[in-house]
Structures are given as C-alpha cells and as structure tokens.
C-alpha cells in the first residue's frame, strides 16, 4: 500500500466487512451498538479523505468525480443512521420486539449492507457492481423480515421476488453490455471496466446497447422504485425496522440510480444508440404523478413516507433524464438533499412510532404538544420534503421545473401540478399528526436528536446559502454527466 489513496479506498470497504464479522460474533448488545457507530464513523472519515487523495484507477475499483459525491453522502448517512439505530434498537430490546440474537444478526447485516453499497459505488466493473447491488438487496430483504410478523414476511417476500427479478434483468443487461464491448475492446476484464467502456462506447454496436439499456433501466429501475416496478417499496419501508427504512430511502435507492446513470453515460457516448433521456423522463414523471396521488388516503406513517420516496426518486430520475448542466446539477443536489431529509424524517418517525406504540396515523395526534422536539422535528422535515422555502429541496425543485419549462413547457406543467398535489397531501397529514389535542402514549422519548439536527441543518443551509466551493463542485460533476 504505497499509494495513500489505495489505503483509504481499502478502508472504506474493509472496515464494514470486518466489523460485520466482528458484530456477528459479539454477544454484548450495548457494546455492539457502539461498535456499529464507530465502524460507520471510521468508514465515513476514510470516505471523506477520498476527496483529496484519489487512488489510480484499478481494474476493479475506481474513484472519480461522480462516485465520490455518492460515497461521501452514503457513508455520512450510514454513520448518522447508526447513531439513530443505537437508541432505536435499545427501545426495541426493552419492549421485547427483538431478542439479543436477532440484534447480533441485525448489526452484522447493517455493516454488510454498508459494504455492499460502498462496493457498488466504488466498483470499476459492471459485473462487480451487479454483485454488490445484489448483496445489498439480499441483506435488506433479511432485515425487512426481521420482526417476523405476518406483515413483515409479506413485505420481505414481495421485496425479494420483485428485487430478484429486477436483479436478474439487470444481469442480462450487463451481459449484453459486455457483448457489445467485447468485439471492440477484446475479451477479458477490460470489456467490463467503466473507464474503458465510456471511452470506447462510440464504437459499440448501437442495437445491442439499446437492448442492454432497456434491461438495465428496468432491472435497476426496480431497485430505484420507479413506478410500474415500485410495488415492493412502500411495504418494505413500512414493515422493516425504521433505521432500515432510512437507509433504504436515503441510500440504496441512490445506489441503484447511480448504476442507471453510469449506463446512461455509455448510451449517450454512442451516437447510434437511442437517447436514454426520454425513457427516464417518462418513468420519472410517471412515478411523481402516481406517488403524488397515492400520498392521499395513507394510514401508515412509514408507508406514506415510502411513497414520498418514490415521488422524489421520480423527480431525480426526471431531472437526469432531461439532462444538460442545469437539470443535472439540480438532480444531483435534489438527490443529496432528499437523502438527508428523508433519513432524518425516518429518525423522527421511528421514535414517534415507538412512543405512540403505533404507525397508524389516525391514532397519532398533537405531537407538538406531547413531544415538542419530535413533533417540531417532523414538522420541519415534512416542510422540507414537501418543498417549502427556504429549505434546499425548494430550490432544487424550482430549478428542475424552471429548466423544464424553458425546454418542454407541457412536461413542466404536469410536473408542477404533481408536486403541488404531493405538497397538499403531506401538509394535510402533517396537520393531523402534529397539531390538535395529543392522543396516544405520552412517555418521554429517549431519542437521539443529534443526527436529526445535523441533517436538517445541512438541508436548511443548502437552501439559504450553498458554499461556493460545494456549488462549484456540484456544477463540475453535473457537467461531467451526460
């Protein structure tokens, strides 16, 4: 390890892998929760170093301007979620919903999931990335089913079936990409490496690439939760442990979208292939419209925010599908802020459903009175996710709608209306949840507020004043995306 960059890339992967094994072996639940936090913190620190120390591109791993954004975001949310998970899990143990054995399993799976996502983001090989995403999917399937209630099993089973079908389609697409590349690049590992694929893409057979992208978009799109393929998402969010809902929404959806973006850039580099943009725009728009209407008439609080994740991933996919520096910039920023906001909302929701003992929304009332900190946290989060100014998501949604308006006014009108519908649904629900006479449990929450505050502060700051260096960085990355 002469190159310091290599060392830190190794650390980002090895820390979660090792701690997964360690956490599976340790019996003490308090210690393991702390170790989980420590491992996630170390991973995050190693990932931030990658901004400055970048290793040479290897045959299997790559760090470039695009994935460094994803990896830092992913490890950061992974870290804050582990902090939240510590206090959440303590309550689950007390109430007897989880036994210590399951807890060991839970922590080991948490770190395995981190490992899978980091590997997917860092891999320079389409095959390796596929394996990593599959690993992440399998671990989340197991975690969703961890409570073993009938509803949790139904959710895990649905997720497993849809997720594995998606993964199978994506593998077929990956094979087709290799087939397109191997006649140009030659057989072997090079024909699966990102950096080689993007460079040589103009020479590939366009017909093969077209078919491959179709499979990849449907396959990885299932994992993004795009609309005709979204059925697993609300159930998986509602029935699993809340830290997993936070990680699913905040990170795993992004990782799948990242895979789509990588393949999109190969498509765009080939002049003969069809433009991938319109497909992504239509899937994205469909997701936004569908999810906006589905937000009404929800009864389960986590399920509602699951639908909200579908909506926001739709917005991001739409923005990337529109393409161009401005839309890409807005899409990238929107994705980042959505991850931060949504995971923080799930932190609040997790504690809320614990103190109230239910996820059924009509039974939860007057949170700002009974639990001011949690209640106002939720109010802030929903205001941010609904796109109220001055939060960052308002700015990015505004940017996306305005750049669309300049190019395709009709699409912008549809998108804008759907955003308003979703906004109305969220505020309607929030009114019932947060205000009025308090209902249900009044026991004080043993919550960890640090992660919530950290996330919301970032979202607020991003909306008011985005530091110029960060702005320049995002613009630079957006320019690279094609």
């Amino acid at each position, binding site marked *: 390890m002469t190159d310091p960059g290599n060392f830190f890339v190794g650390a980002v992967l090895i820390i979660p892998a090792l701690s997964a094994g360690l956490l599976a072996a340790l019996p003490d639940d308090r210690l393991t929760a702390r170790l989980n936090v420590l491992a996630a913190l170390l991973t995050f620190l190693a990932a931030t170093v990658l901004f400055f120390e970048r290793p040479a591109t290897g045959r299997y791993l790559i760090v470039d301007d695009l994935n460094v954004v994803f990896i830092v975001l992913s490890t950061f949310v992974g870290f804050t979620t582990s902090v939240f998970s510590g206090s959440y899990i303590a309550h689950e143990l007390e109430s007897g919903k989880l036994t210590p054995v399951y807890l060991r399993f839970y922590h080991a799976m948490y770190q395995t999931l981190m490992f899978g996502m980091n590997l997917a983001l860092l891999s320079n090989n389409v095959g390796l990335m596929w394996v990593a995403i599959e690993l992440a999917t399998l671990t989340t399937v197991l975690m969703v089913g961890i409570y073993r209630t009938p509803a949790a*099993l139904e959710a895990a089973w649905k997720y497993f079936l849809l997720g594995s079908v998606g993964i199978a389609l994506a593998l*077929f697409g990956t094979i087709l990409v290799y087939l397109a590349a191997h006649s140009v690049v030659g057989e*072997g590992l090079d024909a699966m490496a990102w950096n080689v694929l993007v460079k040589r893409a103009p020479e590939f057979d366009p017909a093969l690439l077209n078919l491959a992208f179709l499979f990849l978009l449907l396959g990885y799109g299932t994992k993004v939760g795009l609309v005709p393929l979204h059925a697993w998402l609300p159930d998986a969010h509602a029935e699993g442990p809340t830290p997993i809902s936070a990680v699913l929404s905040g990170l795993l959806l992004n990782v799948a979208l990242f895979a789509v973006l990588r393949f999109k850039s190969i498509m765009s580099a080939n002049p003969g292939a069809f433009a991938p943009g319109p497909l992504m725009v239509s899937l994205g728009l469909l997701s936004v419209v569908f999810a906006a209407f589905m937000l009404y008439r929800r009864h389960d609080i986590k399920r509602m925010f699951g639908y909200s994740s579908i909506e926001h991933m739709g917005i991001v996919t739409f923005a990337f599908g529109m393409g161009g520096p401005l839309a890409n910039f807005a899409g990238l920023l929107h994705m980042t802020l959505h991850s931060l906001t949504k995971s923080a909302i799930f932190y609040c929701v997790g504690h809320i459903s614990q103190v109230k003992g239910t996820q059924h929304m009509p039974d939860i009332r007057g949170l700002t009175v009974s639990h001011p900190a949690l209640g106002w946290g939720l109010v802030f989060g929903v205001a941010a996710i609904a796109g109220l100014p001055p939060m960052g998501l308002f700015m990015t949604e505004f940017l996306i709608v305005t750049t669309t308006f300049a190019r395709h006014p009709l699409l912008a009108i549809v998108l804008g209306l759907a955003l308003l519908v979703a906004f109305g649904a969220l505020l309607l629900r929030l009114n019932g949840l947060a205000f009025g006479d308090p209902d249900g449990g009044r026991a004080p929450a043993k919550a960890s507020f640090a992660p919530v505050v950290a996330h919301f502060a970032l979202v607020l700051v991003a909306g008011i004043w985005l530091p110029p260096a960060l702005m320049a960085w995002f613009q630079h990355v957006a320019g690279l995306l094609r």
Partner: protein
Amino acid sequence: MDRLALDVAHLLAGGLVLVSFMLLYQDRMTGLVNNFALHALVVSLSVAWQAHIQHAPHLYITAAIALIVKAIVIPLALHRIIVQLGIHRTIETVVGIGQTMLAGIGLVALSIMVMLPITAKAGTLTQQDLAFALSVLLLGLLMMISRRNAVSQVIGFMSIENGLILAATGAKGMPLVVEISVAFSILIALIVIGVFLFRIRERFDTVDIHALHQYRGEQL
C-alpha cells in the same frame, strides 16, 4: 467453428427452453421439483459443452456447481420440504395451464425476434444462446407470476438463474461473473429455502403465498 459442435450447443440450449415449458405445465409439486432438476442438468451439460468448444476450463467449474447444487442438492432439499410440509398435492395456478402455455409460446417468439437481428454480428453460437437464454428468462418470469405457491415461485426464479448462466457462458470470454453469479444463485437458494419457507411455515402452516395477502399492510 465445427458444425457438429455448434449443433450440439444448439440442441442443449434448445432443450433448456423445452424443459422450461415442461416446468410450466407441471401440476404436482414432486413433478415440478424433478423437472427443475432436469432443467439444471441440461444447463450444466450446456455449460460443460461450451467450456469444451470455447477452450475455457473455468466454465467446467460452473457446470459442476450447477450439476451438484442445482440438479442434486436443492431438489433433494425441496423434496424433503415438500414431504415435511405435506404439500405434494396439486399446484394452485393463477391462470389456466393452457393460457400459460400459449403466453409462453408468444414469449419465445418474441425473444427470438428481438435477439436474432440484434446479435447478428456476434457469431452464430452467441446469437442462438442469447435468444434461448432470453426465452428461458421470460418463461421463468411467467412461471413466477402464474403460480401462487412459494416453492414454485422459487423454482421459477432458479430457472431464471439458469437462463442467465446460459447467457453468460454464451458471451464468449466473459470474466469472473460466471463464478460469482453461480455463488450468488446458491446463496439465494439457501436464503429462500432456509429462511422464508420455514418462517412462512412457522407462521401460517402453509406455503401458499395467497395466505400472506390477507396480511398486507393498510387493510385495517
């Protein structure tokens, strides 16, 4: 390439599609599992033949794994589960067998019409393998949606995996993915059999997925 070598490869890949059809019309659990073992046997023969004609010895490992795990171990395990759970009765289907077969024929026609022109430049072997592989994949999907029983859905999924292995070996010289994807298919099978079936059994005394639907969230 040798004409005979090509013909044998074609025969085996075509045979896989045929066995996929046989999976579709099974109406008894034991028959279904036996048919799946045949499916895995054909895929392992096909991969071994590819290893021979492509001079790619590492593919023999894939073939051996497919043979041992999918054609022997998993079917045996499934038989045990079926006996233990007492579910060797008729398989419940969502739509009739006849319609399913018709849909299957349509899917095969579709995949051949899509794949043959697109892969025209990739060589005869790859071209046919991919067309057949896509057929197997789509037939597996059809099986997953047309069956209600958890075991048949798992078998449908594993037949999709077999189709993917056929595609991966057909793409000449594809590195590492074959081994890894096989390792993963084992993992999936283990997880599915070990975790889900026993949990579902424990909770419901049935492996009929239909029983799960009454527990969908929201129907409060």
